[in-house]
């Protein structure tokens, strides 16, 4: 019996395999590093430029008039939260609802139209969305408001959330739905309590992506939320937002404002990452053993 390992060429084959295997692994690791590098670089640069201006005053005070140093962005931090609350209240239910329709009922022409419209809406420049919210909300109300800013961002969230919800629901195996129908559970209940629940992890990820994306938007807020140098908690009044404040300060001629703009950008990114992480942690708690 010939020894298979002693055959001619077998060592060079296994050597070649080892080399390509190593090569592929190194390639994968390098690309992964290249992907996260820009994010890390941006974050590091923001910390480097902004951390010096983040202090108690920055987090608790409103802006000082031009020329005076000090002051902070507390009103903008709260304003961003307020606008995002309105945006989520509009964008998430509409987006999830549309996604449910597309996945469970929309296998027809009308569904295709909605799908196409959502994809187009996703590609509309954010400033155009701002103009739409301006003419739909600001003009009839006759003044800028936190609400109109929330409407603009909410509209931007809808297509992302809808398409993510649809994709995730389509990944739920049909046998799971059949199991529910077989128990005498009506279709609407099956959709909400079985299919959506099975898809919830992916749907939440889609919602967080949409949220994170609009949280940093500036253009749609320029003529909706407008900005404000003072405190405002009313939905129908012009409101400061971190992104707007960073924009205003960054194009100003004052050195102190430039520093504060860096600090504002840092706070914005920390808040977004914090919010996404908080949702992730709170939804992964209470997970069952053996859920994939």
């Amino acid at each position, binding site marked *: 019996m010939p020894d298979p390992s002693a055959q001619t060429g077998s060592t060079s084959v296994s050597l070649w395999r080892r080399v390509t295997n190593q090569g592929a692994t190194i390639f994968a690791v390098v690309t992964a590093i290249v992907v996260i590098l820009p994010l890390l670089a941006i974050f590091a640069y923001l910390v480097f430029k902004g951390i010096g201006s983040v202090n108690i005053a920055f987090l608790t005070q409103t802006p000082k008039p031009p020329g005076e140093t000090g002051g902070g962005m507390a009103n903008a931090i709260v304003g961003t939260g307020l606008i995002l609350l309105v945006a989520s209240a509009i964008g998430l239910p509409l987006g999830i609802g549309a996604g449910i329709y597309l996945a469970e009922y929309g296998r027809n022409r009308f569904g295709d139209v909605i799908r196409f419209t959502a994809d187009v809406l996703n590609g509309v420049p954010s400033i155009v969305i701002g103009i739409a919210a301006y003419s739909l909300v600001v003009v009839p109300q006759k003044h800028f408001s936190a609400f109109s800013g929330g409407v603009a961002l909410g509209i931007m969230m809808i297509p992302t959330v809808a398409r993510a919800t649809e994709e995730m629901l389509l990944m739920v195996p049909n046998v799971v739905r059949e*199991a*529910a129908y077989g*128990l005498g*559970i009506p279709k609407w209940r099956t959709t909400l309590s079985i299919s959506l*629940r099975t898809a919830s992890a992916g749907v939440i990820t889609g919602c967080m992506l949409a949220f994170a994306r609009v949280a940093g938007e500036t253009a749609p807020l320029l003529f909706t939320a407008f900005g404000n140098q003072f405190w405002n908690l009313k939905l129908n009044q012009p409101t400061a937002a971190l992104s707007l404040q960073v924009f205003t300060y960054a194009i100003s001629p004052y050195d102190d404002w430039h520093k504060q703009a860096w600090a504002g950008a840092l706070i914005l990114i920390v808040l977004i990452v914090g919010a996404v992480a908080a949702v992730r942690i709170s939804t992964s708690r209470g997970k069952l053993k053996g859920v*994939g």
Partner: protein
Amino acid sequence: MGVGIEVRGLNAWYGKNLSLKSIDMTVQANHVTAVIGPSGCGKSTFVRCLNRMHETIPEAHAEGLVKVGEMDVYGSGSDPVEVRRRIGMVFQKPNPFPTMSVYGNVAAGLKLNGLRNRKQMDELVERSLKLAALWDEVKDDLHKKSGASLSGGQQQRLCIARSLAVEPEVLLMDEPASALDPISTSKIEELIFQLKQHYTVVIVTHNMQQAARVAEFTGFFLMGSLIEYDKTEKIFTAPADKRTEDYITGRFG
């Protein structure tokens, strides 16, 4: 207690394709009835017509008389949701709800049909898991373990428990053991034997030995028609039809 099933002139279509041709069949209450036949003969379609699952497939529909006890399944004013609640179904591939615990899986049908009483729910879940011979294996982490984390055989018994929890009168099983190993299969077969005390069981199987082991009555389907329906013993020892004989002796299918 189980109830009998009366089928008269049942036709079923997929689109324009007639796949069940005028089926007449009487299923005895509290007995196990097996449905056998080669792939594509319509045996699965037949049981899926009994609880109106057939019509959940796009463009599929069925017509004819199906009476389950006193319930006219295809009568005007018959609600498919109510039909399916009273006729339980176990599928070929175990399909527990993946994000729910063992308890949640068994309780799902009760909860989503509106039962709120916690104590009653606990009792029904325990009773169903015991009936499905799964209780001893899962009782320690009913709430902690996901239904999907069980083994294949356990998952199938979980699915049986889930069907039993809503207290159906009839249990339909569509090749319930075809995805399982021999030990799990024999557990399911023992279970079927126990279940007929409380339920009428109709089981689809492509395994003739299985039909011979578990069923008192057997129906042989071929190309959408019910060729022969009789006592299992008779079908396997002295079939009346030549085609039945060819099939059970392994000459085709």
